[in-house]
């Protein structure tokens, strides 16, 4: 089934970085760079640690699960493995929007034995941020939610299609912590 074009892994626009957990193991060792996958939900830019992301899928047909929590969109089969898909908009209490050609499902390692699909509006690119480009929630302090790890301020501009990002857009990535995020319900 893996050669099914509809389900093929899509590499983000920057294309140069393979989305594989093993490639980013270096980020544990030295506090130099963080590798992050940036994406958009409801016009805001978020990012998840690249090593937590297994795969990026175009949206396959999702089977709804009656009685499931509200943010659960349903289940899909990823090469024979039943995977739960959650809507990141609903998870972050944001208004829903219909899926379009940019909508993607990120397969995120939720725990040791479960991979969860997260529905996002569009995938941007992989960032490698230096330590001084990241403000950790612990440092920023205040009213940040548990699932927000911190804020990233890349020195380079975002490389989205020019027509969608105007010059004065502030380049801020909200860094999400997959653990607390997926424990939310």
């Amino acid at each position, binding site marked *: 089934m893996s050669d099914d074009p509809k389900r093929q892994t899509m590499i983000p626009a920057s294309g140069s970085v393979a989305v594989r957990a093993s490639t980013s193991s270096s980020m544990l060792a030295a506090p130099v760079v963080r590798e992050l996958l940036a994406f958009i939900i409801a016009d805001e830019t978020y990012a998840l640690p690249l090593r937590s992301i297994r795969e990026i899928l175009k949206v396959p047909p999702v089977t709804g699960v009656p009685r499931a929590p509200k943010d659960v969109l349903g289940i899909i089969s990823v090469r024979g493995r*039943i995977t739960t898909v959650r809507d990141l908009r609903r998870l972050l209490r944001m208004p829903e929007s219909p899926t379009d050609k940019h909508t993607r499902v990120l397969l995120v390692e939720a725990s040791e034995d479960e991979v969860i699909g997260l529905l996002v509006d569009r995938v941007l690119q992989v960032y490698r941020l230096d330590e001084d480009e990241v403000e950790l929630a612990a440092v920023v302090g205040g009213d940040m939610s548990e699932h927000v790890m911190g804020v990233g301020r890349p020195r380079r501009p975002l490389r989205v299609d020019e027509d969608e990002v105007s010059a004065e857009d502030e380049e801020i990535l909200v860094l999400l912590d997959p653990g607390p995020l997926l424990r939310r319900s």
Partner: protein
Amino acid sequence: MSDVHDEFLAEAQEIIEALSRDLLFLDQAQKEGNVQPDLINEVFRGVHTLKGIAGMFGFQTLSAMAHTLEDLLDDLRLGRVALSQEVLDVLFEGVEGFQRLLGEGADEEAVDVKDFAQAIERVSKKRDSGEVTLEDLDLDESVLAVLTEYEEHRLRTNLSQGTPLYRLRVRFSLTTIDSNLEELKERAKSVAEIITYLPSVGGGDGDEIDLDVLLASDTPADELGEVLAAGGDAELERIGRQGGRETSHEALVPPPLDDAPGRPMPTSRPPAPEPPAPERGAAPPQQQRDMSADALSLRSVANTVRVDIRKLDHLMNVVGELAIVRSAVARITERIRANDELRQLAIELHRVNRGFERHLEELQEGILDVRMVPLGQLFDKLARIIRQVAREHDKEVRLLVTGAETEVDKLIVEELSDPLMHLIRNAIDHGIESPKVRELAGKPSEGILSLNAYQKGNHVVIEVEDDGTGMNDEMLVQAALRKGILSQEAADEITSQDALELIFMPGFSTRSAITDLSGRGVGMDVVKTNINRLGGVVDVWSEHGSGTKFTITLPVTLAIISALLVRVAGRDFAIPITSVQEAILLDRAAVRTVEGREVISLRGSTLPLCRLDRLFRLLPVQSDRRFVVVCAVGQRRVGFVVDALDGQQDIVIKALGKSLADVRGFAGATDLGDQRVALVLDAPGLLEEVLRSQELQQLGAETHE
């Protein structure tokens, strides 16, 4: 590294299971006063092997513990310590300790080795004092010198038990000695215990050898002679005090060394007992014996392979994918067939695809078969607990097991362990009375706990039955009233069977005193939930004063089930066919409303209906025709109303992810191909839910009147 670690765990687990089985046999034998030396040897070998591999993989505590236990076992098999219930307690405690050390997340401190060593010390002190000297045997010193300590012990034991000892002289051809010896052992097994065999001096003309076999037997001498001599040349002599005939001393002296070079020696006790010269014969070949024990345990595992269950799951997934490919090919074949020119080609393709399908089915069955394990594995574990619990509570319990060979999917066996353990603890704690009470009630002081398993169609039935005090409906109802589980109105009308079912209600527990066995609040409702989750049901029968029986009915396999595909509100659902009785067209005119609930009359009995679209809060679709799928669990039935039937299909059922574990009503999901996924209904669970909500509603209606 972790693979190796898993490998160790699996092997250790196997050894521990065998150990506890053997200990139970020993326990039985000890009670009957007939302890087989082989059994102690078996246990000794198991512990020895465990010590070895534990040391190899760095499980120091386990290894140390096995070491102390090994010492005790050595004393036992050499007769330095007599086997008593106290000794058995320590042995069981040891096996329990091994289990704890191997348990998930266990650290090295899970067991206090010092404590354990002290326990061993205590029982080891009670040495066997009734010594019998072998001098009474009239055996030549040179023979005594080559006997191992173990062999001496066996001679001594037999002497003190008054079992007659014999010497059998047999002549074997050197070329066939191995098989001859095996045959002899086989023949002797039922009538005598072979203590040792030594090459004798007299024999040895050319290519033949004489062996002196020392054996003990209660069988009359002439009968014994007949059985043993079946192979031909053999001469039987009684030896020892009671011996009628003079024993020739020289006969037992091994042949001189110079006889040996280049000769094949008897190898069935590898390596062969080397014929020692009298002056160096003082050291018993203890070392060699231990080696042969290892060789044995290695051989016994050589023809099996241990496989991680996840690998089998993976193979099953692949088979599922292949099934999808097969149906895709079938669809394409249909399209080709529509083209007249390609019709012949389509027929050939169809034939090939059918062949593919057959092999795929075989493959599927093969994988399922590999996953099957006998329930005996689980029963052995439970037997250990039964003994322990019974002893802790001063109850006499005899376990009767039937159908241990019944096979069930490995996953089901794993999941069954907790529910069965709970039922058994309940049976001993609440069910079986203390010996005194039993005698007063005119029952034998020993209670009987039966574990019966058998296959019934594509289900496996497991019964847990005790002949204890049984349950009292009245008390159950009172307890339920006190706990507010039951209303007075409902209590007034409750049938005795329904009263029994009360024990499955959450929060129900009849005993106020909390024992370490049961009564911890989590109880029968958890048992029921666990079994329902496996697609099974549990029924209870009890009669006050004479006993209780729980009957668990389970599907044989979890992985592949036959299912009825249905459509509800535009979605696909699968209903396991094992729960489906029939499917009928819904005759709208026949639907009646009873107490706000829709029912139809089906062949004279009332069938409650449940509209799945409403139950699942789905937007109903317009449809002229609807169907009723009649599902049954035990005696209870519900008709689920669906929009369309899509036929029957074998599906590979897969678990929903952890994040959906709390969602009730679904047993899993299945891949239908074309990226379509259908939810599989948990028919027993839904049935329960629907009937319960109806009962609650009725109850509410009644109290409002």
